[in-house]
């Protein structure tokens, strides 16, 4: 996983899996890379092959943090199976998903 900053946006790339085994760690690492002036998070999900409910918890947690700063979490280019999980749990209502 790689985190870069562009203005008030943090860009995360290179996520492979977001599952119970790493969800808490990924959440904490990204949180640590979001000091307060940082408002928006772009998660490049094009490399993400698998997402489970713990991973969804990580996404929701990041979303709540940035919402409190009037920012957003954008999910960029999730594969069909990832998008399906988001739609199944209706979280595509919450995140901005960019194809």
């Amino acid at each position: 996983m790689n985190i870069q900053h562009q203005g008030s946006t943090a860009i995360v790339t290179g996520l492979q899996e977001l599952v119970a085994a790493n969800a808490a760690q990924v959440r904490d690492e990204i949180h640590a890379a979001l000091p307060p002036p940082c408002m928006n998070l772009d998660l490049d999900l094009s490399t993400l092959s698998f997402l489970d409910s713990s991973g969804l918890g990580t996404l929701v947690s990041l979303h709540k943090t940035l919402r409190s700063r009037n920012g957003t979490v954008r999910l960029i280019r999730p594969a069909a199976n990832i998008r399906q999980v988001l739609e199944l749990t209706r979280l595509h209502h919450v995140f901005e998903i960019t194809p």
Partner: protein
Amino acid sequence: MNSNATNAVRRDFRSSLRLEAPCEFSAVRSATLQVRDWLAEKGLSEAELSGWELALVEAANNAVKYVPADKRQLPVVIEISAGERDVEARITDHTAGFEWPDEIALPDVESENGRGLFLIQSLTDRVAYLRNPQQNVMILQRARTQTAGKPVPDAGRLQAQLAEAEAALNDMTAELSSSYESLVAMFRYSAELVAQTDVKDFSQRLLRDLMQIAEADGAVLRLLSADGKKLETLLVLPEHGRTVLPPVALANASPSVEIGAARNRQDIWFDAEEPLEKDDPLLAAMPMGNGICHAFFVANQLVGTATLGRLAADKPFTAAQVNLLHTFIDFLAIQIVNARLLDERTATRVTRRELEIAASIQRSLLPEKVPTCLPLELSASCRSALQVGGDFYDLIPAGDGAVLLVIADVMGKGVPAALFAAVLRSTLRSMPQLFTRPAELLEAANRTLYADLSRVDMFATAQVVYLDPRGAKMISASAGHCPLLFWQPGQAVASAIGQSGFPLGIESSAKYSQTTTVLPPGAAALLYTDGLSEMRNADDEMLGEKRLLELLAQAGAQTADTHAARHFLLGRLADYCGNAPLTDDQTLILIRNTA
């Protein structure tokens, strides 16, 4: 017949796999990947594999997550069996177990957990959870998508992959074509924008196209009002009859998804499960069964809300269609803000034109030539600030070589002040019989103008001086104006003369007094407006009357020439203010006895 007989004896040949994984997240994750590979060999489609992978991961994670410390050394067991018609999995855990809920609902969107069981249930046809003091078994079962009748596994797998590819291709085509459509639309809009800037027309066409491409039945577009307190309706589509959607206040307490979306800066979806409240103002537009409300912002400022709806509750918008909504509306938001900026720029242009008019009125009030009044000589100038004010001066021949000097400052700026200056000038000029009695002239002018001035809350200060060359006399009166300054050779500092009364337009029966002063040879007098005494230097320090008195004495001592003395004064004033901008008009008349 034959086929019936075949069916009757046909058996579902099942194969199975049993895996034991240490009770850790990473170990059970590896096990589920092995199961996935095994199921792929059995010819399951990509979609089926993804579904099973996720269901098994969720079930196995539960087994790890809730295991008590003393059972952690026991493995999690995953058994899977695949037949032609279905796949069944059993996951054995050693947790305390739980009561399988009758109904599994999604948690609140803000919740960070509690979606596992929902996923398991959604991804399978049947779930059973068998509790036992030693261990619990979760049984998951799901029918296979039909590859039956193709017993050769490789052929089935190929067929499934083909169907998969075809579906993916269809999805991509649909997405590409909607992207293409929106791209074409954007280009068209951009071209149109060059030609016209009517926001409503433009928004209407954009919203119609969006509805068509996103397959919506209705749309509502609202914009934040100028005072920022409510959302006003710009468009309701389709237009039917006279549906008027009243504005909704942002502080509104009654339910409105538009207000909710605007306040929380978040899209709000509504459908059969979470329908619009019956009081939601949107329902007056159309009976929307499901839809999405998107609040849009430019530079972090709310611009408005856009809602797309469908009549049917069971046909939700897809992620791709929501993307279209975002793309179109965010583009529209920028155009709306641009159009507003353009309006503001036009307004600024109008203001500038108004200032030009005011300046030309002011210039037209100044006398074209300076009358002679020898041995008294006059030199005058009026320098306008950027914002044109109401300063003017007048030099009126008053018969027998006498001259009436007027210097005035109408409070206010721009065209109204300039117009009033013109009125004041005409009023004074219309009473030549009073020129020799400046105090009475001011009283008469005040009576004439009082009603008009006070009605518009304006007033003017004026200094009137009757200049009589015989005896080199000045008879002066002041209506709230800066004092007349007087200097004669030998004085180190000039002095202020006379008393001042109310400005014109303050008190209807104001009385004024007049002072007669003789100007000996070489003496000078100065009439000026407060733009001169109140000018500020770079340190924001005001010039003040005292310094002006010193400057007048210096100018008088410096040169006997009237114009040269005025230029000397102006030069010193310019030195004083340095680079500070001129904030008020600067008008002055210098009188000199050249005898």
